[in-house]
């Protein structure tokens, strides 16, 4: 009974319910359709927006890049993978005189852009162009290109680089610049260096000439003289230059030269003097001295500071003389005698004269004294006398054979100068005799100085007994006797 068909109410309710359901579903469907449309539309809008932004970014990037490339002051050219010109920046267009050309083939590059081998009228082989080599994947460079424009030829240096994309060459880029300026700068630099070299050579020649001159002059004005004044070159010397130095002076003179020269012709005189002087010169120079001047047959030599050098030179001169005299006698000439006087002290060296005629000179009492001492050698018949000033400056007087000879008064002064004989150059006989007598001799001289002439005389007699050739002793003996007579006479 209850399985009757649903009641009418139920059916109505059901229908109502279903109607509502349909309505709801319709609503939902409408909503979903709107949603779908909305989402789709939105998606498209957003996509469009994003796409245009992306394009803009790329374009901006490209524009910036192009600006950079355009700003580069060096030529930039790009070929695409087929070798067709793709891009040439402003600097490049200025150099080439043209821009991107629609070439059919990469072989036409050199011809179309007028690229030649520098210094020739031969087109540059296209396969050697750095940009073409870059197309093959090579980094290449060349500096022998030349662009022939209607009005000028531009030397070019170029570098080619491949641009890869996924392993393949996508583009070939070349960078190139005008090297005319640089070449010119190089050429100028070369010229400059050559000029400098020439100047340098000229300078060397001048210096050589100056050196030669000074050398030649050295025979007239000794180098040492110049050096003492502080100069290297004769050219630098001025009038009035002077320097004060401690030196030793040697005067050497030929005895009775006037008499001797009268026996010779002028030519023979000249020859003789030169023979003599050139033999004496080494004795001076080998002992670090220099000859200041020749006065006829007389020699004046200077030694810087070392009295030993001067004395050694004097002894050397006497030894040379002995040999020279042997030579003379062998050919029948008479032997000559010389006297040497040596003094030491403070000398003034310098230049005197006028603008047109200058000479070097040495001024000093010491020089005059040396000359006087030399004069004494004749009186005492000994060849070599030195002053006490020289003796004091000897490093070790015991190295030499020395004995006192006299005390002289310097003109105009109250001082005495003691004069000594250096007899190293005596004959062996004479030297050993004098040395043996030395104690007696010194005693005698001492007594003489004390005016004990009688006792002094006796001792001098004793000296003469063993050494009759001792001229100094002989002179002093006579002196003692004379004094005694004089005193007796009073």
């Amino acid at each position, binding site marked *: 009974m209850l399985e009757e068909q649903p009641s009418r109410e139920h059916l109505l309710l059901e229908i109502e319910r279903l109607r509502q359901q349909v309505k709801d579903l319709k609503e939902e469907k409408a*909503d979903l359709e*709107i*949603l779908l*449309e*909305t*989402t789709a*539309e*939105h*998606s498209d*809008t*957003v996509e*469009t*927006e994003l796409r245009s932004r992306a394009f803009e970014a790329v374009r901006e990037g490209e524009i910036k890049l192009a600006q950079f490339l355009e700003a580069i002051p060096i030529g930039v050219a790009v070929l695409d993978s087929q070798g067709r010109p793709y891009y040439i920046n402003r600097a490049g267009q200025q150099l080439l005189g043209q821009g991107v050309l629609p070439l059919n083939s990469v072989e036409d590059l050199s011809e179309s852009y007028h690229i030649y081998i520098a210094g020739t009228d031969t087109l540059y082989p296209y396969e050697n162009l750095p940009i073409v080599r870059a197309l093959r994947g090579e980094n290449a460079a060349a500096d022998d290109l030349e662009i022939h424009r209607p009005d000028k030829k531009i030397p070019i240096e170029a570098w080619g680089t491949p641009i890869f994309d996924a392993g393949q060459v996508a583009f070939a880029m070349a960078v190139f610049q005008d090297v005319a300026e640089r070449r010119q700068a190089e050429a100028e630099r070369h010229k400059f260096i050559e000029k400098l070299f020439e100047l340098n050579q000229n300078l060397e020649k001048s210096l050589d000439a100056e050196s030669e001159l000074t050398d030649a002059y050295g025979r007239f004005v000794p180098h040492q003289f110049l050096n003492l004044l502080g100069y290297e070159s004769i050219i630098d010397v001025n009038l009035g230059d002077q320097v004060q130095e401690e030196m030793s002076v040697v005067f050497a003179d030929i005895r009775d030269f006037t008499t001797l020269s009268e026996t010779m012709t002028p030519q023979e005189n000249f020859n003789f003097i030169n023979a003599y002087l050139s033999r004496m010169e080494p004795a001076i120079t080998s002992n670090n001295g220099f000859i200041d001047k020749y006065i006829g047959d007389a020699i004046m030599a200077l030694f810087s500071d070392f009295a030993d050098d001067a004395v050694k030179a004097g002894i050397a001169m006497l030894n040379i003389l002995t040999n020279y005299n042997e030579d003379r006698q062998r050919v029948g000439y008479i032997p000559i005698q010389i006297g040497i006087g040596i003094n030491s002290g403070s000398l003034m060296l310098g230049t005197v004269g006028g603008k047109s005629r200058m000479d070097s000179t040495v001024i000093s009492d010491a020089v005059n004294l040396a000359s006087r001492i030399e004069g004494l050698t004749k009186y005492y018949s000994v060849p070599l006398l030195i002053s006490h000033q020289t003796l004091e400056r000897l490093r070790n007087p015991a190295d030499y054979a020395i004995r006192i000879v006299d005390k002289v008064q310097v003109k105009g002064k109250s001082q005495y100068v003691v004069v000594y004989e250096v007899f190293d150059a005596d004959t062996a006989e004479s030297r050993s005799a004098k040395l043996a007598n030395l104690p007696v001799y010194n005693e005698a001289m001492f007594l003489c100085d004390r005016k004990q002439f009688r006792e002094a005389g006796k001792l001098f007699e004793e000296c003469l007994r063993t050494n009759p050739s001792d001229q100094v002793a002989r002179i002093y003996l006579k002196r003692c006797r004379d004094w005694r007579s004089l005193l007796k006479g009073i």
Partner: protein
Amino acid sequence: MEIKTEDYRICYDPATATVSFVGSLRLRGPTEYEPILQLLGKVADVAPAKITLNLQQLEFLNSAGINMLSKFIIEERKKARVEMAVQGSQRIAWQGKSLKNFQRLMPGLQLELV
């Protein structure tokens, strides 16, 4: 109430009953948008008569995002408890086009495009 990340910020100002969206929303699907949907739901719960969605500083919204907002609007239409207003900006491209559809979903929705 606020959700804040590096990319976006969504916050509710009770004084003006306005939910402001700032930044860029590009979450990957309904699951990721769930927290925002929940925030919106809560706002609707506590809000007085009208709530405003301020999208003027929402620079970017992806499809899933517009989907989510649309669903919220449908929801509220069905519940019929609040009035809705949406503020947008003409200068943001998608807003000029897509926001109009919200009015189709909820006819009474006020749309302000400045």
